[in-house]
């Protein structure tokens, strides 16, 4: 609300409302939350439209300025009273209040905003704003592979508002294709987030489920391209393959991947800075050596992702009898203590095992903060900071024969040995040297058994 008043005040000479003080947040997260909802009402959006049309576009300002100033100020005041506060419709990165709130909860304090905002300011000074993204090249000088972390050309194309410039190059790809679910900041809190299952990915954790790199490593560019190209079946994540006919398709996909990497690095740096400030009491500053070290560490992890790819062996070519025997062996491994597959996926592979857990994004602000995600009274404490209702990350029902990370034999093998990061699905122990675990042949048996549950041996 007050954004409109203040922005119009600065844009229009003679604006009666010029200099109106911004309404301060009252500090109560519930009230501030309710106010921000009110500020999204169409009435407020309509008022902004009239401001735009009459003050910014029509050359009527000099003639009608005083009249409109009076009228719009009256509107503004009336709506201010109606909305009882202010909220932000400006497109800026959202500070990570939820993480700050969950880390602070143990200490009993309820004011995460100042900490989240100070971390947000530091990352903004490095990474720029939503409309003008930058890359902190000067902070990464000397780092191996620094030039390969993010291509700013792709980031620039994906950031900002949707549309083509006079050069006919399309920009704002992220807002066009991703923002309604993943949110402006990549926090997984886009407009539709509450209605989706699973919730859209929060990139700021730097964790990606379906990738070809070792557990704990970042995904490669081709992992992200694959997800964009093929989508994730049974979820709201679409495939962009339909746009292949467009000449720009490949460039668009690559640009989006760069922006996702950019948002992930930015968000992860922000998270680490918040944690450093709360846990270690580090004073956050863009020039602080400790803060820069965080940036370099995370950028380094992304730079080295390509070297962490796990090679998957070629699937064996077996006869029907051998395949049947392989499935039977796989059935034993499935129910064994070494793999413990049945514990979550159930004896028949229908995803109804005894152990039902939450994903790491949920655990971040629940279990780690001492909150029981199954207790509505407890988790709702975090709702004003952006928490969505915790939902159990259900193990896959193999009878559906639908695999989100790819359904061919090599894909399943990869999922088994790498796990699905951020979820309760761990990597299977591989027998290497003296380490106990499954050999490659035994893992193939397991792959064949899992596929056979859906009727695809």
């Amino acid at each position, binding site marked *: 609300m007050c954004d409109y008043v203040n922005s119009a005040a600065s844009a229009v000479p003679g604006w009666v409302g010029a200099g109106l003080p911004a309404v301060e947040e009252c500090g109560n997260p519930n009230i501030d939350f309710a106010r921000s909802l009110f500020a999204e009402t169409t009435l407020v959006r309509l008022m902004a439209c009239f401001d735009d049309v009459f003050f910014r576009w029509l050359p009527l300002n000099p003639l009608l300025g005083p009249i409109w100033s009076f009228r719009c100020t009256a509107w503004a005041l009336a709506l201010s009273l109606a909305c009882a506060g202010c909220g932000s*419709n400006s497109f800026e990165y959202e500070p990570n209040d939820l993480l700050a709130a969950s880390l602070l909860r143990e200490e009993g304090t309820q004011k995460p905003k100042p900490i989240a905002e100070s971390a947000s300011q530091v990352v903004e000074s490095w990474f720029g704003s939503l409309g003008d993204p930058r890359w902190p090249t000067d902070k990464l000088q000397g780092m191996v592979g620094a030039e390969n972390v993010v291509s700013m050309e792709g980031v620039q194309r994906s950031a900002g508002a949707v549309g*083509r410039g006079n050069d006919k190059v399309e920009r704002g790809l992220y807002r066009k294709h991703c923002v309604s679910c993943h949110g402006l900041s990549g926090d997984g809190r886009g407009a539709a987030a509450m209605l989706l299952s699973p919730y859209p990915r929060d990139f700021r954790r730097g964790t990606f489920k379906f990738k070809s790199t070792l557990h704990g490593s970042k995904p490669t560019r081709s992992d992200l391209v694959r997800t964009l190209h093929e989508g994730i079946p049974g979820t709201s994540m679409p495939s*962009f393959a339909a746009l292949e006919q467009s000449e720009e398709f490949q460039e668009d996909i690559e640009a989006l991947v760069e922006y996702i990497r950019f948002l992930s690095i930015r968000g992860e740096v922000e998270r680490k800075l918040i944690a450093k400030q709360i846990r270690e009491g580090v004073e956050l500053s863009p020039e602080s050596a400790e803060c820069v070290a965080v940036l370099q560490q995370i950028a380094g992890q992304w730079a080295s992702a390509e070297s962490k790819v796990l090679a998957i062996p070629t699937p064996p070519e077996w006869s029907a009898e051998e395949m049947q025997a392989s499935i039977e062996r796989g059935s034993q491994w499935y129910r064994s203590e070494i793999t413990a597959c049945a514990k979550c996926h159930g004896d028949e592979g229908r995803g109804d095992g005894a152990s039902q857990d939450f994903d790491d994004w949920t655990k971040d602000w629940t279990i780690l903060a001492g909150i029981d995600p199954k207790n509505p009274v407890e988790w709702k404490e975090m709702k004003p900071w952006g928490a969505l209702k915790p939902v159990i990350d259900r193990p896959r029902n193999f009878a559906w024969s639908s695999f989100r990370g790819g359904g061919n034999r090599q894909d399943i093998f990869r999922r088994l040995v790498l796990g699905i990061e951020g979820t309760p699905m761990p990597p299977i122990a591989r027998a290497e040297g003296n380490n106990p675990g499954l050999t490659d042949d035994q893992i193939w048996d397991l792959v064949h058994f899992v596929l056979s549950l859906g009727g695809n041996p």
Partner: protein
Amino acid sequence: MRWWAQPKFWAWAAAVMIFPLIWVGGLVTTHDAGMAVPDWPGTYGYNLFLYPVSTWLYGPFDLFIEHGHRLLGSVVGLLAIALCYTSWRFEPRRWYRWGAVGLLCAVIAQGLLGGFRVVLDGRTIAMLHGCGGPIVFAFAVFMALSASKDWRGALATIESRGMSRLSIALVCGTILQLYLGAQLRHTLPSTSPVGFLSMVHLHLTVALLLTLLILIIAFIVRTRAYGAAREIRTPANVLLLLLFVQLNLGLATWVANYALPWSELTAWLSQYVISAKGYWESFLVTGHQATGSLMIAASVWLACRVWRRQGKLVSQPVSSRISASAVSPLTQAERPA
């Protein structure tokens, strides 16, 4: 009178052309192509009508539909001007002449809104523009209907005011539903999940109410009380059909955009991969919006037929072809001695 001199022809032509305009406008929203052409009223510096056809047809798809939308809009503008001219030249009813002016103003206002949406890159203006289109369509349909034989020759056969109220409620309800749908289609990037969720729930609630309303209307028009006004059954039946199509399209639109959140209940969808901006997906989403527009138009059709068949409204027929003896007893009774 020659065909080109009849306002009826131009009113129908405008209504018929506005419907594809709404389709293409819907495609523009579906493909987020509103800013595919960054200038207005020209196109990349060219006059709107002089933009090279080859670049338009073989360029990017978003540019194709956005420029096409503008061209189609200007055709509708020309038709509205023709309607205005013929109405003032040949139409005896004064209110109809002003109605034609109103339609022209509405078309111009829509064009300006579309222009401001581009110049100011405003998504809220895009939402208003999206809401305005179907209302202009309904207005054009009203102008076409009010120039029809049915309008001029309707007999007073409905005594009760109940159906009239229901039909007006239906017009208002469908417009409200369109507005809520536009809120969902033109979501701001900063819209909160709670705000969006509330809007979805509201959209579903109004859909339920409209379903009930249409079912009630479809039932009532078949009762004995409306036996003499069989003409109102046609729009009621059309509404029933559109409702069936629209409910299915609504569900399909959600699935095509976001899939369904109940994986345990919808295992048959577990292998479905949403295709971003896919052909069928775009068709479904845009079809939902266009069918919504048709429902508004059909509601206006029903309201017109009901109104014209109520005693008081038929008392001042304009250039009616009906003889005095054919007018219903109710109308005769209402006439002054």
